[in-house]
């Protein structure tokens, strides 16, 4: 096989991996650290992407500028979604959270279908087609931006969790809920804050994704399985793991398509997910349990 094709596939895989990391980073916090299984992660991303789309179409706000609107908006949505819906209604049971977020994802997706209709939308701006030379191949500028942003976002989340008081509280709640409550941490609030932060990263991901991806009510499907795979592969709660996991998944997809063909090539992601859960549930970088 031609070396340049492999080079191109590598670069393409890494960039795709960056996108997956971006989407999965929030899930690493809410699923990986707090074990809240948010099955609506994909649909909430889709919702945020429609937000970015309409901010551009109706108000003419550039997707990258939308960051300062979408990130806090999604944080607030996440905080109250947990406070008044998910946390309240699930009575703290793992499986109830899974089912409630499933119900939410069905709800969000079909509301989107009702209001926005089923067709895919893309945006085109002066910079969306701008190409940059990277090694042997040309790469769209927004893809590079999203890649860099994914790395920065994971670094920021890692810092947040290790260096700030909020992060300390989140880790305390994750490790020992009762103990955290005893030392005066408002556990429910910490859950809501974490969920908010998780969704805030989705807001950021939506702004960075919109210039390179399409949005339709089913866009979330593309990312649900992938995001869970990245989190499990990287190791629960490890942001470093999310980066590496995302890149591995991106490369697997890219080379799977190259060697196994378009149809069978998609099998890699699901296989990784199954094999990791069966044989190494702590993931690559997770603490052994």
């Amino acid at each position, binding site marked *: 096989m031609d070396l340049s094709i492999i080079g191109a596939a590598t670069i393409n895989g890494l960039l795709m991996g960056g996108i997956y990391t971006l989407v999965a980073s929030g899930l690493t916090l809410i699923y990986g650290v707090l074990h809240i299984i948010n099955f609506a992660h994909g649909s909430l991303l889709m919702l945020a992407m429609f937000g970015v789309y309409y901010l551009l179409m109706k108000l003419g706000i550039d997707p990258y500028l939308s960051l300062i609107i979408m990130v806090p908006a999604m944080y607030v949505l996440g905080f109250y979604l947990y406070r008044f819906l998910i946390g309240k209604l699930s009575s703290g049971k793992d499986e109830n959270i899974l089912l409630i977020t499933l119900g939410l994802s069905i709800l969000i997706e079909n509301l989107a279908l009702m209001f926005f209709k089923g067709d895919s939308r893309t945006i085109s701006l002066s910079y969306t087609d701008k190409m940059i030379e990277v090694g042997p191949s040309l790469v769209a500028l927004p893809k590079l931006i999203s890649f860099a942003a994914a790395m920065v976002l994971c670094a920021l989340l890692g810092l947040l969790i290790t260096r700030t008081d909020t992060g300390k509280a989140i880790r305390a709640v994750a490790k020992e809920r009762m103990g955290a409550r005893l030392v005066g941490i408002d556990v429910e609030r910490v859950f809501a804050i974490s969920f908010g932060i998780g969704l805030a990263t989705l807001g950021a991901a939506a702004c960075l994704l919109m210039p390179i991806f399409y949005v339709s009510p089913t866009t979330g499907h593309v990312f649900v399985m992938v995001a869970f795979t990245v989190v499990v592969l990287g190791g629960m709660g490890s942001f470093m793991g999310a980066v590496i996991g995302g890149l591995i998944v991106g490369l697997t997809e890219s080379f799977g398509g190259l060697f196994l063909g378009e149809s069978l090539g998609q*099998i890699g992601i699901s296989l990784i997910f199954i094999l990791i*859960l069966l044989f190494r549930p702590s993931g690559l970088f997770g603490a052994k349990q």
Partner: protein
Amino acid sequence: MNALSSRQSWFLHGGLLAIALIFPFVFNSPFAVNFGVLALFYAFIGQSWNIAGGFAGQLSFGHVAFFGVGAYASTIVQMRYGFSPWMGLPASALAGAVIGGVIAALSFRAGLKGSYFALITLAFAEVLRIIANSVEITGGGLGMLIPMKQTLANFQFSERIGFYFVILALTVVSVVLAIWLKNCRFGARLAAIRENEDAALALGINVFAEKIKIMMLSGAIGGVGGCFFAQYFLYIDPSIVFGVDKSVEMLLVSMIGGAGTVYGPLIGAVLLAGLSEYTRTVTSVQGLSLVLYGTLLVIIIAFLPNGLIDLFRRRKKLSAPAQSVLTKSTSRES
């Protein structure tokens, strides 16, 4: 059901069966019969999810794996090897049971429970979809078309009512299975596993083996559901018979009707079929029925953890003296 005396219970079952038998003669328009077929079909595949997810507490998000494998097994047996389509029924049950056993053995050997099990079943279904999409024997992404030849020997009926009685018979079998599970030792062991797996283990229950058995049974039912689907619509392709939405529908009908109850899936299925037919014909707004269904799921998890069937039960419990409820529940455990 437990609150009923055996005589009342015979009346209930007999009455339901009589209604189901008379239904297609009273409402004999193709539309109504089609509605009956769909409602029973959802009840049947919902029961497949229910005996694993409801009775044994093994929440799965990928039950469509069994459905799809059954659909392909029966169609391949018929189209590629020339067997009678009726042979598709045992073939699909076998295929569903095997896949159920394999998925269960792998996942439970690794100790996966709760949400981890739910997610890995989803991944297994996805793997099967991709395989069906890529290999030759399934016809790949183009799917398989079963030629139309409307004779009884060919599992096709010129009138929909034929299909109605086939799916009614299958549903009756599934309900009988569920009633048996409610009353037999095996079912009691499953309930123990659902309520507290560690305690069940401590009681000497072979948790691993019981869970594999129930997944095989559930898989067999799901597989037969796939066979019926293939014969009714005469066309299958990977994204239809391995699609996530079918998994979700199987889960929804039994969660909403009442997971772990005998008639939960039936109640949920009548509601699902009713809502989707109604919203499609009356409003023609895309997605509305699922919006209602998603909302219903959230409400049910929050307020009626045993599903809509609780609406009937609660009233009974309130009117019955507290004492009898207590003795009943303790006597069932012994």
